[in-house]
């Protein structure tokens, strides 16, 4: 018999796991009578113990109780406690009668990462990094308590919802190659802005071209080490050169869409007789009017996020030109890839030998399809899909590739970052933002931040070691290492 924790979930202990190998642990369905599928946790022993330090695994067991699940719930090594579904979770529901859950996508629909690279050698540009950080901070606003860089009338916002990064291309904010090197080519088919509330549009119309706050950032990195020279060459990654990472999502537009549907689905679960262990996991059948309405609205938010990262990439390019252009001549930033890590997608996967249509929910997890995937530009098809894994502020980040093996292990998914281990409250108590900024600057990292309190919450020690997370996904066979990046300038909202 399981014990209940203070918040009503089922406590999980290390002895409840079956060790499959050094990097994979299973909680079988026998653990809890309401579990429909097992939970697979990808972690080394130390990361597993980290995950047991909060409610991550309890939340994973809750997710495993949703109706219509297939295979297993896959938990990434960067998992941490969230709300409803843990951050770092992947679940697949059978179409058409399985469910779709807005809370299992998250409020920041299509939060994701874009990486651009350059042929600018860090050594030659080092003395410009402070200026570059200031100009990036000015040109890429957080939008917190203010307005965005590209105000939109509502009818133009609807175009953004339908066209995604294609809208940005029409506006002169993109190169065609950027779209080719973006997940889903920067646009999800079937977006329905008519299923988005007026309230969401009011929230989103003034926020395009903004980073947001929390763990969102824009970072200039130097390509520190290359692990797969052949892949790096094809991708244009040169050791010692500058790269840029942009981490953000659909801003208040996506947040409000999720808010609206989580509220509306409270009635839907009563209507469809769905029993839930946590109300944040509300859901509706994929083929129901409610499920279809959410899917159309979610795609609108996803397209907004693709356009948002594209607009920020444009501002980053302008900033590089402004600061390094006169000195360097060539400061063009070439896109490596852009990925989503909060999304639900209709995909075909092989489950127990059969190809079936499923809705894969990835919350804090990255799609990571292997070589041969037709949704990649021709130069990447032999390699597999690029995966962009930001570390915590001041630490390394990684560029990986998807693998063929992850299809059966994680529905073609891998990790999305370092993953938190310390609460924001504790980080604020233990870390002073101004001191942290000073420490980072002593290490040669220029920092610009909207709030010192916000900076303290994102202190590196509040996160797991991203290198350990990447070693785990690499050993587990769910991603392949290409290159490691080190930060030289960080801009935070």
């Amino acid at each position, binding site marked *: 018999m399981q014990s209940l924790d203070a918040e009503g979930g089922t406590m999980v202990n290390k002895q409840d796991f079956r060790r499959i190998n050094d990097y994979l642990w299973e909680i079988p369905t026998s653990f809890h009578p309401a579990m429909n599928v097992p939970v697979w946790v990808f972690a080394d022993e130390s990361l597993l113990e980290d995950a047991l330090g909060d409610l991550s695994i309890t939340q994973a067991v809750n997710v495993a109780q949703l109706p219509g699940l297939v295979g297993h719930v896959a938990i990434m090594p960067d998992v*941490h406690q969230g*709300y409803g579904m843990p951050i770092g979770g992947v679940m697949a529901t059978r179409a058409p009668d399985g469910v779709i859950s807005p809370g299992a996508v998250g409020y920041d629909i299509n939060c994701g990462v874009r990486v651009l690279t350059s042929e600018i050698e860090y050594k030659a540009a080092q003395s410009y990094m402070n200026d570059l950080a200031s100009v990036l901070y000015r040109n890429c606003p957080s939008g917190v308590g203010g307005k965005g860089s590209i105000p939109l009338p509502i009818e133009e916002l609807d175009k953004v919802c339908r066209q995604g990064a294609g809208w940005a291309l029409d506006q002169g904010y993109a190169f065609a190659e950027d779209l080719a090197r973006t997940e889903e080519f920067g646009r999800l088919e079937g977006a329905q802005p008519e299923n988005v509330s007026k309230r969401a549009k009011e929230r989103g119309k003034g926020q395009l071209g903004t980073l947001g706050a929390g763990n969102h950032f824009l970072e200039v990195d130097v390509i520190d080490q290359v692990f797969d020279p052949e892949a790096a060459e094809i991708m244009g990654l040169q050791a010692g050169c500058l790269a840029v990472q942009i981490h953000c999502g659909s801003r208040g537009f996506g947040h409000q869409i*999720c808010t609206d549907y989580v509220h509306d689905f409270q009635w839907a679960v009563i209507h469809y007789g769905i029993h839930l262990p946590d*109300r944040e996991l509300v859901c509706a059948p994929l083929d129901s009017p409610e499920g279809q309405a959410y899917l159309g609205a979610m795609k609108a938010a996803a397209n907004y996020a693709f356009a948002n990262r594209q607009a920020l990439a444009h501002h980053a390019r302008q900033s590089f030109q402004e600061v390094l252009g006169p000195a360097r001549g060539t400061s063009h930033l070439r896109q490596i890839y852009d990925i989503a890590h909060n999304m639900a997608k209709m995909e075909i996967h092989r489950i127990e030998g059969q190809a079936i249509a499923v809705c894969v929910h990835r919350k804090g997890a990255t799609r990571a399809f292997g070589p041969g995937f037709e949704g990649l530009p021709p130069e990447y098809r032999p390699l597999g899909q690029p995966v962009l894994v930001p570390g915590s502020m001041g630490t390394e980040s990684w560029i990986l590739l998807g693998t063929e093996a992850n299809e059966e292990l994680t529905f073609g998914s891998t990790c999305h970052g370092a993953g938190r281990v310390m609460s924001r409250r504790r980080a604020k108590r233990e870390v002073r933002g101004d001191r942290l900024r000073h420490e980072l600057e002593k290490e040669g990292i220029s920092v610009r931040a909207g709030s010192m309190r916000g900076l303290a919450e994102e202190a590196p020690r509040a996160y797991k070691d991203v290198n350990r997370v990447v070693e785990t996904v690499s050993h587990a066979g769910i991603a392949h290492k290409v290159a490691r990046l080190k930060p030289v300038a960080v801009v935070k909202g």
Partner: protein
Amino acid sequence: MTAFSNSPASGFQEIDHTADWAYQVWGKSLAELFTHAAQGLYALVGVELATEPRVVRTIHLTGVDSESLLVAWLNELIHLHESENLGFDQIEILRLDGAALQAEVRGAPTQQWLKDIKAATYHNLVIHSTEKGFEATLVLDV
């Protein structure tokens, strides 16, 4: 200018959560719990209001139960900030039952709002009856 107090005597207290913000809130009545939940939200994000112009809004919300109304209430305040840059220091709950909430709120434009709040969530949310009234723990996605 109005700033919001973050002391435990105020009817709410921040608690630990790995990735997001969580706070416990209590009140002698459901209406007071809702008022404290709003004040807690404003204190956590470090709101400061301008002296004027003063504004009044009437809020009508529906929900499946009190928990659903509590989440909708906080999300309405987040929405009023992001869409109109407003915060409220006077809250009067006019009607609150298991299906609907009506409130009149008075406030002003915000001069300071330090933290982006994506949403108030339903995560493990239960409003408990206690000897002193009601209490609940809220998780905000930040």
